[in-house]
């Protein structure tokens, strides 16, 4: 369970997040919705440790933790970026196994076995040796999900998972997210796409733009 208490974030004096409170229960899906510029992505970046917060506390299973400095413990957060950010110089398999071998110190064989299993699970069999430029947008996104999952995160965060994809792929993303939920993954999804948010959310957080 992830809890945020009174999270505040300013950029150059401008208040972006004003005392955000939220709780995500294990195995549930929280969607964060709101208009552009409201701070949805900023909130996600704070949760995933890419931005320092100005004040407020994070708790994981009741224990306080700091996402920015939480680098040497277990992986808490997996992140699927809006533009995926696969590493173009590595094949799909290398993208997925890089961190497990270098950070979790898994053997190459172990990491590759896990990667192949996850790739198959997300309908990416046969793509392991391709480079990212050879994949479609939807495939890239699924590789990004697999890459995050291979680090065995406690939570998986998505930033606008539908915005870089064709509209007809929305259903596919939805299915993946629900499938991962069925397997017990806790997920946070930032989106401006209300129908999409409503169809996957257990819980919804609205972020309003500050004037």
């Amino acid at each position: 369970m992830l809890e945020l208490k009174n999270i505040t974030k300013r950029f150059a004096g401008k208040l972006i997040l004003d005392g955000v409170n939220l709780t995500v229960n294990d195995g549930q899906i929280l969607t964060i919705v709101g208009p552009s510029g409201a701070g949805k992505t900023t909130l996600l970046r704070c949760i995933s440790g890419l931005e320092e917060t100005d004040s407020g506390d994070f708790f994981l299973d009741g224990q306080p933790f700091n996402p920015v400095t939480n680098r040497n413990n277990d992986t808490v957060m997996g992140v699927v970026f809006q533009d995926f950010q696969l590493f173009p110089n590595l094949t799909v398999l290398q993208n997925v196994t890089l961190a497990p071998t270098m950070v979790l110190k898994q053997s190459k064989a172990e990491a590759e076995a896990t990667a192949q299993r996850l790739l198959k699970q997300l309908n990416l069999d046969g793509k392991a040796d391709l480079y990212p430029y050879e994949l479609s947008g939807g495939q890239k996104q699924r590789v990004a999900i697999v890459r995050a999952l291979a680090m065995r995160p406690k939570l998986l965060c998505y930033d606008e998972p539908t915005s870089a994809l064709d509209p007809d792929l929305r259903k596919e993303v939805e299915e993946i997210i629900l499938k991962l939920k069925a397997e017990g993954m806790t997920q946070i999804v930032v989106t401006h796409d209300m129908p999409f948010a409503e169809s996957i959310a257990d819980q919804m957080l609205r972020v309003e733009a500050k004037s």
Partner: protein
Amino acid sequence: MNYVSQILPSLISGTGTTLSIFFWTLIISVPLGILVGLGMITNFKPLTWLIDVYVWLMRGTPLLLQLIFVFYGLPIIGIVFQRYDAALFAFILNYTAYFAEIFRGGLQAIPVGQYESARVLRLTNWQTLRKIVIPQVVKIVLPSIGNEVINLIKDSSLVYVIGLGDLLRAGNVAMARDVTLVPMVLVAVIYLLLTAVCTVVLKRLEKHYSAWR
């Protein structure tokens, strides 16, 4: 033909000096260029300022002048180099500045998202640099580095000014002694062969890096 075989040994020995300057300058100034290039994109102002001044000096004055300065000028303040060491020192300083500028450009072309993506995967800065950033930068800068590599072969002829016996000097000596242009033609052919080899190697490298985009 007889004449050619007569002067060839001295030309080949000169080529040895040329290649040795070329080789060591490249081996040392490329990694140094990466480091200085990294220094240029840090937020530590005193460092970037220092590097800016260094690059300005190295690119803003002729290499020939720098060679003269290192070999004839530095002894005045008590720093004495052997001829070869002086040449290498000047070349490394000069080429590191050019390589640093090239690598800076390459480093700045890598999107922030790549670093963030590596960060959430908990890769260390060094792992990120080695596995993700540098391979992408190398691909970007390869054509510009290739240009400098070809330049370096030809620039190495400047060492004549401090009395080192390189390829051009060997040709020069033979030309002055025998009053014929043949040595210079041979020198040109050897330079062309050297740059041709470099061109082929660079093409291969670029091809290797074209596996991904």
